[in-house]
């Protein structure tokens, strides 16, 4: 019979908890890349030349239809060979999850813009607004509100995915748990610790996003 051992927790919690900043770094790094690139790609997918739109669709499909873990491994082991450089595990992890997030956020952005609807474009254009002013003053302000909830949800997903970088040796929460587990053979205590730390972080994130969502709800005509 396996006996729960509080001693393991007391002894190793500080070590595992020191992964928190790394988990946050990976998460927010990926979110930053995802938001900036996602918005740019999303806008281009509604406005750019057809050839550009097609190329971007390929990018989006590529990242949405392969596992994130495969993308992470690919950026760590394969891409350096293609580029003839070394990429550290932290950078590879952030870039891989960041690009994956960008693919999803670009779809959120595009969907938000398309969802505002043809009739708003007609109204703006019929008043003589240029395409650019129509986008800036009429479509985007409405689209932005539609994007908030799914994007906030995406942030929570990214925080969960950040644990995957443990696979390439980034010392975030899960990876530090693995290290302790190998030394102590106390998987129950160790992974409970890991799970509880993630639970606290992700619950905090979810709460924060719920507040943001309440503040930014779509307007109805």
């Amino acid at each position, binding site marked *: 019979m396996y006996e729960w051992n509080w001693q393991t927790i007391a002894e190793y919690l500080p070590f595992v908890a020191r992964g928190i900043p790394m988990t946050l770094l990976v998460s927010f790094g990926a979110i930053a890349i995802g938001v900036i690139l996602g918005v740019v790609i999303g806008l281009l997918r509604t406005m750019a030349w057809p050839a550009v739109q097609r190329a971007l669709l390929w990018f989006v499909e590529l990242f949405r239809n392969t596992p994130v873990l495969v993308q992470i491994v690919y950026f760590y082991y394969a891409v350096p060979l293609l580029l003839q450089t070394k990429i550290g595990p932290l950078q590879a992890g952030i870039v891989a999850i960041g690009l994956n997030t960008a693919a999803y956020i670009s779809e959120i952005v595009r969907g938000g813009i398309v969802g505002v609807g043809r*009739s708003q474009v007609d109204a703006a254009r*019929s*008043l*003589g607004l240029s395409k650019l002013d129509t986008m800036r003053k009429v479509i985007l302000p*409405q689209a932005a509100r539609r994007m908030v909830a799914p994007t906030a949800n995406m942030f929570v997903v990214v925080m969960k995915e950040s644990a995957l970088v443990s696979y390439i040796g980034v010392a975030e929460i899960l990876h530090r748990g693995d290290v302790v587990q190998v030394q102590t053979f106390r998987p129950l205590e160790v992974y409970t610790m890991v799970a509880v730390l993630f639970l606290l972080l992700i619950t905090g994130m979810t709460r924060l996003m719920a507040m943001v969502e309440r503040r930014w709800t779509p307007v109805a*005509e």
Partner: protein
Amino acid sequence: MDKPVLDLAGVHAHYGEFHALRGVDLTLWRGEVIALIGPSGSGKSTLLRTANLLVTPTHGRISFEGREIVRENGAGRSEVLLRDHQLNEYRTRVGIVFQHFNLFPHLSVMENLVLAPTLVLGLDRDTATARAMELLKTVGLAEKADAMPGDLSGGQKQRVAIARSLAMEPEVMLLDEITSALDPETVGEVIRTMKLIAERHVAMLVATHEMDFAREVADRIVFMDEGRIVESGPPAQMLAEPQEPRTRLFLDRILRRATT
């Protein structure tokens, strides 16, 4: 009513393969009010959207105030002669009001009226605001200036949409069944507003099912069916003795429905 303000000649429009307008000739004179009637799907909206160039005609010519803005090239296909900014300018002079209002829901009533005059006509904010306030008084909604569109009734929204269009001081107003999405009790207030525009001598092309409006306000009734103009004439004549069987059938149906 001395000069044509908008002149369409042999205008065709397609949605992909679908042939929605099949050779429309229509002249709108300065200050004239035309009631455009016809069954659902006959092409009324398409005609209005083509006049505003939201839909680009495939064949035919359009002139505005004597100047050709859409011509036919050698192959008989339509060509818009306006560059982007000229097209935007043209649209400020030919306003359109839609069945479903299409107000900007994220902007207050006042902001809805001020947006295009400041951005497109280059008015300063104070002037645009003062003019918008005058228009809101005209349509009886001065006290709603700071309301959001979502808080207005259908009739109020439609009056705001009319005011928003008038804020550009257009020569032509295109009204696309602007009362048909409204509750019956608010139709009256919108029709009164339409009469006010007519009194300003703005030329109007009004797609409508409101036969009372057509009879009392229109100078001419134009009946459309299947993408063509079937018949047109002064209201008294059109309503009393339509020449074409299709017109008669349509009027019988719609007038009977109105009285029962």
